[in-house]
C-alpha cells in the first residue's frame, strides 16, 4: 500500500497548475491520509471506498455513487460526508471532524476539476485473467513406461514424481469397463459386454470400446445432467406458484447437441443468442431456452418489474459463472471486493440481457388473488412422430381418469340423494340438469356438481383435480412449445441499481464487458450475439479453463481448480496449472472445442485407468489425493444410481426425449401450497415410469425425493458442482423407497430367469450384473449364506433372491465408481 504512494509521489504527471491552485499532493492527500485511510485504504475498502490509489478513488462506491464530481462540489459525496452535521453519519466516524480549512481545500479541489493524478496502480492481474498458452510437455516419467500414457499423464506423473509418489497400478479390466461405461453412458455394462472385453483386455480393445461408447445415444443422456445443472433446467417456475412450465424441447436439444458433439463455441452461441443468428433455425431458437430457465415468481401480488430485474440478474450471474468462472453476481450490489469487476461493469454486462420482453404481468387489476401470468416469448415447436406417441399415452390416461371420475361422481351423487324426495326437491335446477346429462361431463361440470352435492367429499374433489392436471398435461403436449429469447426492437435503458435495489436507479449504462478481460471487438454487435461471440473468443482466458475443469470434475469428482464457480482471486489455485492450460489450449486449438475429443483423451489416459486402491504410505503424503496417485472413486449421481438400478433390474425404458416422466413416489410428498398449482402428483404408468433420470420431472419446490436425497440440486440457480453427501436418508432410500424395492424385486426375478441353475451361478451372475467384476470367494460365501438364511426361514426362493438383490443394490461399491 505504501508502495503505491511512493509510486504516486514519484510521478510527475500533474497537469500544470496555476499559481495558488490546490495541489493534490500537497493539499489534499495529507488530509485523506490523516483522516480516512484507517477504513478506506485499498485493503479495507469500507463501503467500497478506497482513497489511496487513483484506481479505487475513481470507482463508484458500494452505493453506486461517485466520490467526487469534477467541478461540482454540491454533488460530491466526499464533501457531503465530511460536512454532515449529524455526528452519527459524519466522516470520519471517530475523532474530530475535518477543520473548515480542510473542507474548504477539498471543495476548492473539486471545484477546480478534482484532478487525482493517475498513479498507474491497478490491481495485479490474477493468473486466470492471463490467456493460457500451450506449455511444453514434461519429459515422460519412467514410471509411465508400458502404460499407454498420453500428455495428461506426463503432467500428472511429473508432479507425483516431484512429491515422491507414483501412479497406481492399472485397474483390473472389469472395474475399468464399468468405470468407463458409467462415465460415458451413465449405465453399467452387461455381463456379456464384460465377457467380451475380458476375452481381449488390451489397450487397443479398450480404445475401440471408448470410441463406441462416445457415439452411443445414451452418451447425451448422461452428459446432459451436468449441463442442465448449469442451465438450471426445471419443469416448474419456482417460488410460490411453482406452476409447470414446458421446457423439455430444450432438454432434448441439449441431449442431441451433446450426442452430435456440437463444438462448444457453437453450443454456447446458440444457447445465448441463437435467435439473433442470421436466419435462425427452429433448433437454434430452442437453444435460447437456456436463459429462459431462470425461475420466475408468479405469486399473486408480485411486481413484474422486480421479477424482470431478478431474472436478468440471474442470467448475468449464470453467464459469468459458466463462461467466465467469475462470481460477477457479487458486483450486483457493490464493486467486486476481490476481482476487477465494478458495479458499473456488472450493469454493463446486465444490459446485454436487459433487452428482452417482459415475461410476466398481473392478470387483472385490484384485489383478487389473481396470480401473475407468463407473457414471455414462446415458440411452437414442430411435432415429431415420437411426440405424437407420447401424446397418445397421455390422451389415454386422461380419458380413463375422466371416465372414472365421471362414473364415481355420479355414483356418489346418486348415493347421497338416495331415494329421498326431500333432497331431490331441494336441489338447484341446474344441478338436476347436470345429473341428468347423458354425455360425459366436462371438468368444469364435474367440479360444479361435486361442490353442489358433495362439498365435503375431499376424495372426490381430489380426483376431479387430478383429471384437470392430466388435461393440462395433455394440452401442453399437444401444443408443444418452449420459452425462448427474443430481442426487443427498441432498447430498454439499463441503470445501475444502487445497492442492488432495482428501484434505486443510478447512472444509465450501455452494454459492455469488463475492462480486465479481453477486448470486445469493434465489429461485434453490442447485443447478446456479440456477447456470446466474445465469450467464446479464444482470447477469453477463462472459457476453456472453466470448460475443461468441469470435464475434469465429471470424471475425477473434483476439479483441477477446486472452486469451479470461482476462478477469481478468492478461488483456489489450480493443483496442476500447466496441465489445466495444456488441456485448455488443446481443447480449443487441437480439438476445435470438441467435448468428445477432450473427454476421449482423459478416458484413455493412464491416470484415468489406474486403480482406486489406497495405500497407507501414499495416503500420508497426499491424504486428499490431490496429485492423483490413485483413481479417486466416488459416488454416482442421483440419476445414475437410479438408471443403473433400472438397468440391472431390466426395467429401464430405452425411450429417449419427450415430456418429463413421473416415477412412483408416495402420496403426500406433494402437498397443497397456498396459491400454487398442481398439488397432486400423478405417477406415470407403464414404460414411462422407468425412463432415465434425465427425464424425471424437476419441480423446484417439490424435488423428486430420492434425487434430493442423493444431492441432485433443485435447480433454482446455476450449480457447477454437486455436493456428494453420505447420509442415513440415502440408506433408507435404497432400502425402502418403493421405486427401489420394485427394482430389487425385478432384479431378483432376472436372477431367477437368467442367472443359471445353481446358486453358485446365480450369485456370480447377480454380482457381475451389479458390479461387473467377479466376487471373491469370501464375498460369494457371504452372499450364499444370506440367501440360504432367508430361504431356510421363509422357504421362498423368490424372497431369498430378493435378499440377494437388495444387498447388491445397497453396497457402497454399487453406488460408486471404483
Amino acid at each position, binding site marked *: 500500500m505504501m508502495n503505491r504512494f511512493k509510486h504516486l509521489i514519484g510521478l510527475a504527471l500533474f497537469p500544470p497548475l496555476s499559481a495558488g491552485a490546490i495541489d493534490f499532493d500537497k493539499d489534499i492527500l495529507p488530509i485523506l491520509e490523516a483522516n480516512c485511510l484507517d477504513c478506506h485504504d485499498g485493503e479495507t475498502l469500507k463501503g467500497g471506498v478506497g482513497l489511496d490509489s487513483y484506481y479505487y478513488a475513481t470507482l463508484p462506491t458500494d452505493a453506486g455513487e461517485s466520490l467526487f464530481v469534477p467541478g461540482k462540489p454540491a454533488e460530491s459525496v466526499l464533501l457531503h460526508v465530511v460536512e454532515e452535521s449529524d455526528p452519527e453519519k459524519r466522516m470520519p466516524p471517530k475523532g474530530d471532524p475535518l477543520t473548515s480549512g480542510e473542507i474548504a481545500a477539498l471543495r476548492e479541489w473539486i471545484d477546480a476539476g478534482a484532478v487525482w493524478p493517475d498513479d498507474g496502480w491497478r490491481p495485479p492481474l490474477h493468473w486466470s485473467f492471463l490467456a493460457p498458452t500451450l506449455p511444453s510437455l514434461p519429459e515422460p516419467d519412467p514410471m509411465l513406461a508400458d502404460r499407454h500414457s498420453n500428455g495428461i499423464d506426463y503432467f500428472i506423473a511429473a508432479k507425483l514424481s516431484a512429491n515422491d509418489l507414483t501412479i497406481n497400478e492399472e485397474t483390473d479390466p472389469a472395474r475399468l469397463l464399468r468405470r468407463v461405461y458409467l462415465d460415458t453412458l451413465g449405465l453399467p455394462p452387461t455381463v456379456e459386454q464384460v465377457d467380451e472385453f475380458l476375452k481381449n483386455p488390451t489397450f487397443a480393445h479398450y480404445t475401440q470400446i471408448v470410441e463406441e461408447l462416445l457415439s452411443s445415444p445414451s452418451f447425451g443422456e448422461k452428459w446432459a445432467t451436468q449441463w442442465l445443472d448449469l442451465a438450471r433446467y426445471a419443469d416448474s417456475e419456482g417460488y*410460490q406458484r411453482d406452476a409447470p412450465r414446458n421446457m423439455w424441447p430444450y432438454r432434448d436439444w441439449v441431449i442431441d447437441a451433446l450426442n452430435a458433439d456440437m463444438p462448444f463455441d457453437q453450443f454456447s452461441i446458440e444457447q445465448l443468442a441463437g435467435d439473433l443468428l442470421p436466419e435462425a433455425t427452429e433448433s437454434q431458437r430452442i437453444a435460447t431456452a437456456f436463459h429462459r430457465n431462470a425461475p420466475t415468481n408468479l405469486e399473486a401480488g408480485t411486481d413484474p418489474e422486480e421479477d424482470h430485474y431478478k431474472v436478468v440478474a440471474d442470467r448475468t450471474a449464470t453467464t459469468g459463472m459458466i463462461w467466465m468462472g467469475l462470481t460477477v453476481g457479487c458486483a450486483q450490489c457493490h464493486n467486486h471486493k476481490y476481482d476487477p469487476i465494478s458495479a458499473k461493469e456488472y450493469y454493463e454486462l446486465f444490459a446485454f440481457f436487459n433487452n428482452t420482453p417482459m415475461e410476466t404481468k398481473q392478470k387483472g387489476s385490484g*384485489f383478487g388473488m389473481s396470480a401473475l401470468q407468463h407473457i414471455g416469448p414462446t415458440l411452437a415447436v414442430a411435432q415429431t412422430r415420437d411426440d405424437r406417441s407420447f401424446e397418445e399415452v397421455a390422451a389415454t390416461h386422461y380419458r380413463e381418469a375422466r371416465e372414472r371420475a365421471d362414473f364415481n361422481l355420479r355414483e356418489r351423487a346418486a348415493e347421497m340423494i338416495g331415494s329421498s324426495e326431500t333432497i331431490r326437491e331441494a336441489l338447484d335446477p341446474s344441478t338436476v340438469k347436470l345429473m341428468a346429462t347423458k354425455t360425459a361431463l366436462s371438468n368444469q361440470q364435474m367440479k360444479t356438481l361435486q361442490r353442489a352435492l358433495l362439498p365435503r367429499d375431499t376424495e372426490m374433489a381430489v380426483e376431479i383435480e387430478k383429471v384437470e392436471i392430466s388435461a393440462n398435461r395433455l394440452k401442453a403436449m399437444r401444443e408443444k412449445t418452449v420459452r425462448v429469447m427474443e430481442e426487443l426492437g427498441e432498447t430498454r435503458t439499463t441503470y445501475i441499481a444502487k445497492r442492488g435495489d432495482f428501484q434505486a436507479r443510478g447512472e444509465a449504462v450501455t452494454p459492455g464487458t469488463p475492462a480486465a478481460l479481453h477486448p470486445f471487438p469493434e465489429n461485434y454487435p453490442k447485443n447478446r450475439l456479440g456477447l456470446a461471440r466474445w465469450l467464446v473468443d479464444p482470447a477469453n482466458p477463462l472459457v476453456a479453463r472453466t470448460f475443461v475443469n468441469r470435464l475434469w470434475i465429471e470424471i475425477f469428482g473434483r476439479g483441477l481448480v477446486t472452486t469451479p*464457480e470461482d476462478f477469481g482471486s478468492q478461488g483456489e489455485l489450480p493443483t496442476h496449472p500447466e496441465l489445466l492450460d495444456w488441456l485448455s489450449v488443446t481443447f480449443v486449438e487441437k480439438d476445435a472445442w470438441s467435448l468428445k475429443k477432450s473427454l476421449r483423451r482423459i478416458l484413455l489416459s493412464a491416470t484415468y485407468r489406474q486403480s482406486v486402491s489406497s495405500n497407507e504410505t501414499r495416503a*500420508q503424503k497426499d491424504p*486428499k489425493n490431490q496429485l492423483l496417485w490413485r483413481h479417486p472413486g466416488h459416488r454416482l449421481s442421483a440419476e445414475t444410481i437410479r438408471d443403473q438400478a433400472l438397468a440391472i433390474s431390466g426395467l429401464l425404458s430405452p425411450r429417449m426425449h419427450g415430456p418429463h416422466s413421473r416415477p412412483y413416489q408416495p402420496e403426500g410428498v406433494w*402437498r397443497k401450497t397456498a396459491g400454487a398449482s398442481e398439488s397432486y402428483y400423478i405417477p406415470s404408468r407403464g414404460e414411462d415410469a422407468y425412463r432415465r433420470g434425465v427425464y424425471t420431472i424437476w419441480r423446484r419446490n417439490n424435488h423428486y425425493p430420492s434425487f434430493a436425497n442423493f444431492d441432485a440440486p*433443485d435447480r*433454482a440457480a446455476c450449480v457447477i458442482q454437486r455436493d456428494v453427501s453420505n447420509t442415513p436418508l440415502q440408506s433408507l432410500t435404497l432400502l*425402502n423407497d418403493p421405486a427401489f424395492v420394485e427394482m430389487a424385486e425385478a432384479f431378483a426375478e432376472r436372477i431367477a430367469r437368467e442367472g443359471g441353475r445353481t446358486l453358485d451361478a446365480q450369485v456370480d451372475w447377480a454380482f457381475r450384473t451389479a458390479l461387473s467384476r467377479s466376487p471373491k470367494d469370501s464375498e460369494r460365501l457371504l452372499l450364499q449364506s444370506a440367501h440360504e438364511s432367508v430361504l431356510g426361514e421363509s422357504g421362498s426362493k423368490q424372497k431369498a433372491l430378493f435378499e440377494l438383490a437388495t444387498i447388491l443394490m*445397497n453396497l457402497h461399491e454399487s453406488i460408486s465408481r471404483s
Partner: protein
Amino acid sequence: MTSTDRDIMGRRQFLTRTGAGVGSLALGSLLQESAGAEAVPEQFRRVAPKAKSVIFFHFTGAPSHLDLFDHKPVLEKYDRQLAPKELFEGKRFSFLRGHPKLLASPYEFTKHGQGGNELSSLLPRLGTVADEMCLIKSMHTTEFNHAPAQLFFHTGLNRQGNPSIGSWTTYGLGSESSNLPAYVVFMKGNTPGAGANLWKSGYLPSVHQGVRLRSEGDAVLYLNNPEGISRDHRRRTLDSIEALNQQNYELIGDPEIQTRIDQYEMAFRMQASVPELNDFSQESKATREMYGKSEFADQCLQARRLVERGVRFVELFHGDWDTHSKQESRLANNCAEVDQPISALIKDLKQRGLLDQTLVVWGAEFGRTPMLQGDDSPEKCGRDHQKDAFTVWMAGGGVKGGITYGKTNELGNEVAENPVEVRDLHATILHQLGIDHERLTYRFQGFDQRLTGVEKATVLKEILS
C-alpha cells in the same frame, strides 16, 4: 492409517469440497456418535451458549400483528375512514389499490403478568406465559410477497438456493442425537409458498437439510421396511451389507465406505427412534391435557420430545394466515388452534427445566397493513401484506421474559423505535446458541458466506438476560 486418522478422514470426506475444515468437524458430530458439547468447534464460539436447541415456529401467510400483539387505539378512532396518504403513496403493495381505508382491530388487548406484555383476546392462554415472552414489535423486512419474504426470513436472502437458519445451526453445532436427524421440520396445513427451500441446506453440505416428519405415511420418507421385512430380517440384511462394505474398505481404503457403514447403522436406529417420538404413552395425562388434542398439539409435544433427545433445531410451519379476506373468522380459528399447544409447550419446557436451554421463536414472513382490504363488512374484510413493521416473539434460551422491545408508529405500519432487521434476529438466535454470526462462515463462490450477509447485523443485547 490409525483408526483416529481414519475417523478424521471419514469426517473430512463428508465435505467433498475443500476448504471447509471447521465445518467438517461439526459435520462429523452431526452423524457420528458421542458428539457432546466438546464437539462444538471453537471457531464459531464467542460466548457461552445459553440455548442448546431452537424451536422455531413459522406462521405461513403472515398473522396480523395488529390483531394479535400490537395494539393501536388510534385505528379504532379512524376505523373504516380513508387512510392518510403517507400510508400508501409511493409504497408498493401486493393487492391494495386506489385509496384504502383504515381497519381497527375488533379485539380487546390485555396486559399480562408482571411484565405487562400486551396480547389480544385471541391468545388468552399465551397470556398465562406472557412473562416468559419477549415481544419484538419492531421487526421489518424487505419483501412483501410470500415466497421471497419466507426465503428472506429463513435464509437472509430473497432468492432460492441458500441455506436456512436451521441448516446453519446444525452446520455450526452438529447434533447431540445419534439416532435422530439434527434438524426436524413439521407442517400443519398448506406447505409454505417457498416450499422445501425453507429447510434446505442450499450451498451447505446436504446433510444439513431439515428432515420433514410427516403425519401421513412414513413419518420420515422411506423410514419403514417394505411389507414382509421384519426388524430382525433387516438387521441381518444390514449385517451382510456391512460385511461386504467392510471387505471393500479393506481393499480400497476409502474412508467414505466407513461413513457409509455408519449411515446404514444410523438409518437402522432411526427406524426405532422416530416412531418412538409419537408414542405418548409415557406422557402424563396432565401433560396430554395441557397440550390438547389436535395435529398441531401433537407436533408441539413432539417438538419438546425432540429437544429432550438432543435435536438441535425443530421448525413447525403452521398455515394459513394470509388473511386478505374473512380475517375475523380465519384468525379466530387459527388462534384457537395454536394458543393452547404453544403455551403448553412453554410451560412444559419450563417445568422440565428445559426452557432455559431451548429458544422458542414465533415468526412469520411479514405483518399486515392497518389498511383494510376488500369488502368493508367485518365478516369479509382483511388486511394486505406489510413488510415495514411486524411482531415476532421469543421465549426461553436466555432471552428476557415479560418484556417488549421496539415500537411501531401510531398506525402500526412503520417502526418507530429500535428497528430490528431479519439479520439482527438471526444474529441473536445464533448468539444464544453460542455462535458468533460473523464467524459462522462457509466458503462458496469464492466467499466466506454468512447467514447474516455482508451488512452489519446486531445482536439484540437489550433482550438478553
